């Protein structure tokens, strides 16, 4: 009986918490067009100021930002942007798709087939997020 009462109360509590939040949503589309690699601190303070796309460690840190405040990323980046690298199945490397954009921090440049044998030994954990459960069908041609 207590369990049923708790289950019945939960939606009510969540509704109440939702109603009391009273925050304004992050803009779905960034009000101004942003070009190139932005330094968000030029206009923003607080949590958005940390999103400096030109910083040398942004590529390393962007996964933490995305996992905490993806609505901020979505203001400028559509889903099509993320799947360029974070794909379910993909046959073309991002660095091959965008040869005319050498300034971008894209993974697996150059002859990566030779190098992955080394980098895969050094830090295989960095491979898992993209290839552990997705985008790994080609692995079986060598890794039986």
């Amino acid at each position, binding site marked *: 009986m207590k369990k049923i009462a708790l289950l019945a109360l939960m939606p009510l509590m969540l509704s109440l918490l939702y109603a009391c939040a009273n925050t304004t949503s992050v803009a779905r589309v960034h009000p101004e067009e942003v070009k190139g690699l932005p330094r968000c601190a030029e206009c923003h303070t607080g949590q958005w100021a940390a999103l400096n796309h030109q910083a040398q460690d942004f590529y390393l840190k962007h996964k*933490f930002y995305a996992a905490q405040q993806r609505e901020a990323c979505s203001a400028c980046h559509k889903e*099509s942007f993320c799947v360029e690298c974070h794909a379910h199945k993909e*046959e073309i490397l991002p660095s091959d*798709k965008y040869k005319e954009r050498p300034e971008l921090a894209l993974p697996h440049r150059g002859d990566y087939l030779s190098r992955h044998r080394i980098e895969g030994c050094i830090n295989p954990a960095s491979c898992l997020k993209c290839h552990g459960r997705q985008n790994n069908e080609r692995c079986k041609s060598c*890794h039986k």
Partner: protein
Amino acid sequence: MKIKTAKKTGDPPPFASKPMRTVLLSCFLVLLLHQGASATSISGNSTTILRMREGMDDKNLFPLYEYLHLSASDTTKNGAISLEIGGWGRVDLGDRSFEHREEGDIQYGFLSYRANRNNFRVDAGRQWVVEGVATERIDGLSLRSDLAAGFTAAAFVGSPVVTQPNFNDGDLIYGGRLAHSVPKYYTIGISALRDEASPDAVREEEGIDLWLHPIAMVDISGRSTYNSLSDGWMEHFYTASVTPTDSLRFSASLQNVHYDDYFYHVTTSALSLTNGIILPGEEMWNAGGSIGYNATKSIAVSAEYNHYEYDIAGNADYYGATGSFGTAAGLAAGVSYHRMDGSTNRLRYNQYRVWAAQKFGPIDVALDFFDVDFDRSINGRENTFSLAGAAGYDLTPNLRVAADLDYIRSADFDNELRGLVKVTYAFGIGKEGK
């Protein structure tokens, strides 16, 4: 220590096995949330790619790809509803380039509602969920909303979208995240996920994530993830950066990975604990740091160092420097040197890169040279390099043609020449579609 072996999964749960339910739910959401559109936008992007290269056994490969992304949205006084679909298809014009002559994939396809208040969001369909410990592609439903007193909650449920070349994944995945924020100073979250192959779990992970911004110049973020099935910490990964001036930035990172817990469940033998490469019982520490300095508006330099330490394998260091140069006139160039210094000859190489790109009105050209010099030969070759030249032309603001040639001398090919031609067309109507 429990090592996962391939197994035949049971019947999927009723919810996960019926994508139709997702579609019906999407239609229900449309009916429920569509309250008279005030602004409709449709936008899309088509990229047609023809690749030209030589495969094994002197095969001539001409795979033709079409990537298509579509987005349609309606905004109302309370929020916006949108439909996002993206995918690709490939057909081989020459010899067979992969397992099948034709291949394709729906990368994402979901209906989304975002309210103007409380960051409330509902997504239904094939989507990429990124919430704390979860970085998953699912066919299902996700919700996210702000709650009272600075709390945020998110939840997701669906069928995992995976590729399964060696081992099966689960049929039903669900999880969520609860976080508390004081926007200018910190966010701390707890999250969990469970992936089931009925009735057993193949993954059960919990974690804590944080973002700290105690003063304007300091930014700390990271995550710790625990594997309940193997009863051990999978990973601790934290980064910190200090920006004393606009032009100077120090950063540091610390990562700790327990292989038994981290590689507990994968679908490829390339990353499994049974392949002889990923060593069971191994623990890795990776400590690193970097300094970035913008000397002028046009010149930036950075130096980085990473030290890897293992319980079983030998240690390794990776360090190097990068310099880049850019002008308002459309010139961008860069040079970098990195050294991978492992404990054995096999894990040692120097890596050099030089690149330059220049824009002349609607035309742009780029050159990229990437050289790797191994201390010990791989397949009889110590030096491998790739030299790429690319050019693009914007026929109109929406239509672009680009092509590149890539010459590669690798450990696997003596003289490989690859080409690619790409036509990109962006289209749209409405305020957001332009």
